[in-house]
């Protein structure tokens, strides 16, 4: 989201909206980048426990300089802290948590999300790109619910919500719900379905920027 995008939700407002949908006590994995903002918007009275796939459950925020430890890092290789009740473990155990369905939620960024829930978020498939996948494919295959948090369009103005992904997939039919700067949209058996519009944003405005039909009858049910 560039500063030029002054309409719709800000990044922090999206994060706040995502956080509202996470129940107390959830075990959550936040993808690197914009999803990390969710941790700054936990609603009062709720506790989320953050998992970072490099081997820590109970991850806390960035450290004060005095507590900074180059071997206490998150999956983005940034230094973090640990919360009371935290536990360290190896990679096999960490991905047993992921693959075994023990995490309640993963919030990830996206290059593209398709109307059937397919997600592309690891490679643009460009010829000169260095392929790198990390834990993305494991997360989408194993975590109970996968939320996508993203700008509605690319910097170049292309829709990210599409009928069918053209970039290489991270996983098939894995995304549950999308939180963009313009709207909250569910992935349903009938395709994209509107849950909520950002303030001042109209349905037509969102549909014009989405490369697949969005159904609206779903909105009321989903909000209840």
């Amino acid at each position: 989201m560039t500063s030029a995008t002054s309409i719709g939700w800000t990044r922090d407002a999206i994060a706040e909206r995502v956080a509202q949908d996470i129940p107390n006590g959830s075990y959550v994995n936040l993808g690197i980048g914009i999803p990390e903002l969710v941790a700054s918007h936990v609603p009062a009275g709720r506790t989320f426990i953050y998992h970072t796939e490099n081997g820590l459950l109970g991850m806390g925020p960035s450290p004060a300089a005095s507590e900074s430890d180059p071997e206490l890092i998150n999956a983005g290789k940034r230094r973090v802290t640990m919360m009371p009740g935290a536990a360290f473990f190896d990679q096999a155990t960490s991905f047993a948590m992921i693959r075994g369905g023990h995490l309640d939620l993963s919030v990830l960024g996206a290059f593209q999300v398709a109307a059937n829930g397919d997600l592309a978020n690891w490679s643009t498939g460009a010829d000169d790109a260095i392929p790198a996948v990390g834990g993305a494919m494991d997360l989408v295959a194993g975590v109970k619910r996968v939320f996508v948090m993203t700008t509605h369009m690319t910097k170049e103005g292309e829709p990210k919500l599409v009928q069918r992904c053209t970039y290489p997939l991270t996983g098939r039919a894995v995304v549950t719900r999308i939180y963009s700067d313009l709207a909250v949209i569910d992935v349903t058996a009938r395709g994209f379905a509107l849950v909520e519009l950002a303030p001042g944003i109209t349905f037509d405005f969102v549909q014009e920027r989405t490369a697949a039909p969005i159904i609206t009858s779903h909105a009321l049910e989903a909000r209840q």
Partner: protein
Amino acid sequence: MIDKRFASAREAVADIFDGATVMIGGFGEAGSPIELIHALIDQGAKGLTVVSNNTGTGLVGLAALLRAERVSKIICSFPKTAGSTVFPDLYRAGKIQLELVPQGTLAERIRAGGAGIVAFYTPTAVGTPLAQGKESRVFGDREHVLEHGIRADFTLIKGRTADTHGNVLYHRTARNFAPMMATAATVTIVQAAQVVDAGALDAEVIVTPGIFVDRVVHVPAPALESALNEAGASYP
């Protein structure tokens, strides 16, 4: 605020339903969650499938659950420990099904179930009666048998110390199957001799991270099968 404590074993096992699959920790008496098992006997669920390495001794704990005829099938590696009479009698009478699994394959199948690994190939049991009827396949120059992950509705285990987030430490060889079983059930219930606040345990030494545990019951002085049996106890 997260607090997984339940006030009693009775409340912790209240929703175990007829026909449920229940994993029960322990190798012999070491790690056997006797108080949770006794609460399950009181609770009354029947037609259970139990996954446990042994079948208990005397007339207490797992043996008492079997004797109450609540278990229709057991998945087990060694059902005839010295002092085990309940299972042999039921088995000879055709009142219980047995799925016999090599101990390491049992451990790995439970781990696989908890880790989202649906099936794996192992060299164990190839060429023996326990591989009969199972798919096998040669990798390299060696035959392997296909084994499937196991999952359960509930797991009952015994820890030494647990915290309110469900992190668990074990006592010596009482650890055995508990860490894998904790991962492989929809609802994992831990009885622990000591229960502490989150943050009291060193994050480096936790054996079972709290994400795998749903309910913690404080059982300060857990009974031991051998002591109960020496005292001639039977349950209920």
